[in-house]
């Protein structure tokens, strides 16, 4: 609990937590403006999907950058000499931002439901909406975990740029392949209306499961590297 509070304060004071919480809402506002300006429902949906994807990538970059700063500033070492287990420290740096990302995307989803005429978010089935929102937030988890892997050895800015670059490298083939039913970014396809909305729960759960599996694997790699690293 002491560690969780410490990491939360660290994220808050560096304004990273504010960024994580605000980015999805900003993406939604931009989508609302695009929707209003273009008058096209499809343009609004695509803007929302792209905006939320960008928010997820930037959130992951903020998490990676924060952890890199924790190591570079010596704060991680300060905690480790006080017998804080390294796995607990890197665990807190993953779980806490992940919860913040989830909360931010749920709030953005509610906002989108109120402001945008999207068929999906106005659907009467609240479970489908919730699953879709989690699926939209889920790609931020493996990216955050990848950010932690990079942050173990790289400085702050390099980590943030690398996370964004990695997201682009991963996203490009996903867009080109376009098999929305299996790949990790299915949530965005749902939001954009490019996947039939009659089975959002199946698609959403597949996407979330894939993201969580990859995130767990990458977090394990990050923890292994962090435990072996000299501080």
């Amino acid at each position: 609990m002491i560690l969780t509070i410490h990491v939360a304060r660290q994220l808050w004071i560096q304004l990273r937590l504010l960024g994580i919480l605000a980015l999805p809402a900003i993406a939604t506002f931009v989508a609302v403006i695009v929707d209003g300006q273009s008058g096209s429902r499809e343009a609004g949906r695509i803007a929302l999907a792209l905006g939320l994807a960008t928010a997820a990538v930037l959130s992951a970059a903020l998490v990676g950058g924060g952890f890199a700063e924790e190591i570079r500033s010596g704060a991680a070492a300060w905690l480790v000499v006080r017998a804080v287990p390294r796995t607990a420290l890197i665990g807190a740096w993953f779980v806490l931002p992940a919860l913040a990302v989830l909360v931010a995307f749920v709030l953005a989803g509610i906002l989108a439901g109120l402001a945008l005429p999207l068929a999906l978010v106005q659907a009467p089935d609240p479970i489908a909406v919730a699953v879709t929102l989690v699926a939209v937030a889920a790609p931020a988890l493996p990216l955050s975990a990848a950010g932690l892997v990079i942050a173990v050895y790289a400085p702050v800015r390099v980590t943030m740029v690398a996370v964004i670059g990695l997201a682009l490298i991963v996203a490009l083939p996903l867009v080109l392949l376009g098999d929305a039913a299996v790949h990790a970014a299915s949530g965005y396809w749902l939001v954009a209306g490019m996947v039939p909305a009659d089975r959002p729960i199946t698609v959403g759960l597949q996407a979330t499961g894939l993201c969580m599996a990859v995130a767990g694997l990458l977090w394990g790699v990050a923890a292994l590297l962090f435990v072996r690293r000299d501080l």
Partner: protein
Amino acid sequence: MPTSTPDALWSSPAAGRLRPVAVEVNDLARWVGHQPLLDGIELAVPVGTRVLLAGVDAEAPSLLLRIMAGLARADRGSVTLAGLQRGSAIPEGWARRIGFVGSDPGIPLWMTAAESLDLAARLSGIEGPDRQRRIEESLQHFQLGAIRDRPLQHAGRIILERTALAAALLPDPEVLLLDEPLRSATAPDRLRLLRIPGERRTVLIASRYPAQQGGIVDRVILIRDGRVALHAPIGELDAQRLPLSLRGLTALADLVS
């Protein structure tokens, strides 16, 4: 201040006669690149000793302390501090009995001095009124009262170093590891703050500038070629009319061997 080891143990006649070992290092090795900075270090430091660690390779003493503190890994060997091995110790027990201050203070700069001491106390399992009392005493002893509630990012390096030392001493550790401590402090301040009270406390100071540790340590250790080349009372230097410097320590090591 009470120590975390029961007083009954320390007051027993056996403890006085046996001079128990506070720091025990067995066959410790660490390669950095293709060079063995530490290559089979064997060390036993009795309780209550103040030791200067110097090295012909200036990185070696610092690396040894960081391995002891759990910040760096060893390629082989074991370290026991105050009877504890890091991997198997209860975290609060370790944090309470072992203190470390690195050459980089490392305290999160957004914290105030009081907050960093409070976090150090909580991580050591110090709760209740005792925590507040210790924090107040530390703030006073290390002259941090005036900036106690200001973020450390506005403070100079000297304040950061003092806060780091105060945080390390707050749990009243039995073994204190200091890696180039108080580099920014004036000589009188260094002497005052590093003459750390507590006859049961064992202090190891790694320094590239042995002469600065005069009046603080009572034993010297020289690491050469990755091994302990000298482990002697500081009086040996006086007896051989050698200065407390790297050259003096090397000459004494040659004489002894």
